[in-house]
């Protein structure tokens, strides 16, 4: 260390000891033998594991020696939990979308890629008067910048980006326009189409209801 700190400052590099070029090294032979030994070790180990199907798991056992490459696209590393993948529209218990067509997401969207056409429930439906439903819900995946603002904005936990999948490459632009049916068909990483957050339907005892309005 004392050598590194010299008077007058300036950058002093760390001294790397030069390897000794002994006679043995200069004859080239023992070093070649060592190199061959390393090479054979890798070759035999990896070939054996390939042939016997003993390759280590490329994700779980990635720190072990051996072949750790992922054979994309047959094998894919799952995206981490915080990854924002394709959108999906979550379902209610009866299979209809949780979305109430409040337009929060399309308002929040900086890329303006969400288009929603709200519609009223028919006369006599329990939900009429409480909420609306999206007659059309379209996301242009080419415009989307995957910022996740729509998920943040949604008050009903109706739109999520937890599918863990990236958009499939298509060969024309119109194929990137995902409509309501497609978005509702996508599943979350856990395989479910619902969310864990409870939903209070009109008529449920837990539903705050419109009666509350009368009290004020």
């Amino acid at each position, binding site marked *: 260390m004392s050598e590194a700190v010299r008077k007058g400052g300036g950058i002093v590099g760390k001294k790397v000891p030069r390897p000794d070029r002994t006679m043995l090294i200069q004859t080239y032979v023992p070093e070649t033998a060592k190199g061959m030994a390393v*090479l054979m070790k890798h070759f035999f180990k990896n070939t054996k594991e390939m042939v016997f199907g003993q390759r280590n798991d490329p994700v779980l056992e990635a720190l072990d020696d051996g072949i750790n490459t992922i054979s994309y696209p047959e094998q894919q590393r799952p995206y981490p939990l915080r990854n924002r993948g394709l959108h999906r529209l979550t379902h209610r218990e009866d299979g209809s979308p949780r979305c109430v067509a409040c337009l929060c997401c399309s308002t929040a969207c900086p890329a303006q890629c969400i288009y929603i056409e709200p519609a009223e429930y028919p006369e006599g439906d329990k939900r009429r008067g409480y909420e609306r439903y999206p007659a059309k819900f379209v996301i242009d995946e080419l415009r989307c910048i995957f910022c996740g603002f729509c998920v943040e904005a949604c008050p009903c936990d109706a739109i999520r980006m937890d599918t863990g999948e990236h958009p499939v490459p298509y060969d024309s632009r119109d194929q990137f326009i995902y409509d309501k049916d497609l978005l509702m068909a996508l599943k979350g990483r856990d395989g479910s189409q619902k969310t864990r957050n409870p939903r209070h339907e009109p008529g449920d005892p837990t539903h705050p209801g419109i009666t509350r309005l009368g009290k004020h």
Partner: protein
Amino acid sequence: MSLVDLIASFIKIAVLIGFCLGVGGALTWNDRRMSSMIQDRVGPNRARFLIPAWAARAMFAAPALLIGGAVAAWGVLWREIPSTAFANARANERIVITFELAVLFLWIGLAMLTAWSVRRGPANALEEFLAKTVKDPRKVFYAGVVVHVAVFVLPIVMRGSALAKQLKPQLFWIGPVTLGLVVAAMGLVGAAKVPSEGFKLRLIGLLHTMADGLKMIWKEDFVPKHGDKILHSVAPMIALFPPLVVLAVIPFGDVLCFATDPTGKILISKVLSMVPREGVCAEGAIPMQVASLDVGILFIFAIAGTGVLGAAIGGWASDNKYSLLGALRAAGQMVSYEITLGLTLVGLFMIYGTLRPENMVWWQGQNAWGIFVQPVAFFLFFIAAIAETKRIPFDLPEGESEIVGYFTEYSSMKFGMFFFAEYIEVVTSSAIMVTLFLGGWNLPFLHRDGITVQIGDTVLFHYGMSHLMVVIISVIAFFTKVLAFAWVQVVIRWTLPRFRYDQLMKLCWRALLPLSLVNILVTGVVLLVIQNTSVTVRSALDAAGDLTQVVVAVAMIAGGVAAVRWLLSPVRRQPVVLSTSAEMVARMGRTITRPMQA
């Protein structure tokens, strides 16, 4: 030349060329496989056949049932031991070999079954036993080795006893029947283990090499506009020709002796049962060698020397200055290293006292392998031979991607022929090295009359074997040695970086050439000293020669045991869950492999 000789020559040529082309292809594959295996990646492995389950089951079961049935039928139909003395000796061999093979297949099958049932769970009582009680396939292997030794030793111990006389006629047919049953059972178990969706035959990427070879044939055959069209086409043939021709004088097995009729014609159906250890066949002999020449080794050098013409003409006919420069580099390098190649052998000639490859092999079988009597020459010859094949670290003539080489203007199968010639040269040069230095077709202590372990004049162990069996083993030994040595050359190719051209020339003229001259001098002096010493010293040298055989034999057996032990050793893995990705994979069990779409 009689008709028998002619047919035998054709068969020998076909065997040699078939071996060369097959191994050449396998080396191409091995070269690429190694490039990926040493870097811990999968490598070219996409080409594959999907074999449906029924076909895969048939592939396992049908040959096993056929072969097993045939072997068992052979045992049952020829169950009487003929009364001649020869036949009696061969009956012993049939019993021992069938039982040894049965034991071999049995432990291999049981070890595989153990590994399978430990990994995938047992399906029946036997697998339950293997998975729960045996657990480690290595235990099966050790038991197998013990039984192997027992089967070999028991007949020797029991020779001459009343029990042996009583058992022998029974064992004579039980042996083949047991072997047949084991083979059939292995096939059936294998068929039962085929997954119901069939399996993908990839042959660890071998199919990929085949696909590449096919591609090469269909590619455009380009000839430069102002190039010499005839020479451009002839050059790859000249490059491919010498390494194949050189093999003509290489003996790839011991002489096969036949009985003859009174006129001296060979009776092809009558192979001699036993031959004495020393001397040549008294009657008709077919050597395992295409041409037996007096000049032997000199023929190899004369033909191999023309190999440089292929590269030189190819570079010249391409009408490309850089190709021409590459060709000149090739010519300079090959001519330089040929001098070392020739001079290293002078010491061998002095010791062997012959130019005939078959006599050299014979000498090595009687005394010690060339690598022990001329280690320096072996080392120098090895380096020079790698330089002759123009492969890394001496691949300046071609330098596929960096330096423009002599076959730049070649495409399609003409390029393929240059490329393939290189691999065949590897096979040929390892065949020459095996012949000169590694004992050719010799195995330690295996002589014409069987196994004789002998140190100096004391015979420790003798085991008689029939002539045909010895010849078959010697042929297998030769080809196995060549394969192993060719593989070592591929290892060297992946270990070393390329030399600079001046380093290349310095290595040849300033290091290898003086060393080979010194080697000649030292060999001559040592030979003179030995010739003028007492008998005790010479008999001590004889014993030392036998000791080298012991060393080789022990190394081979220990290596084999260690290899199988390593193959069967279980893998220990340490799953590390450090990311949410890994968590998800852990929840699924392991990373899912889906079939590729489209």
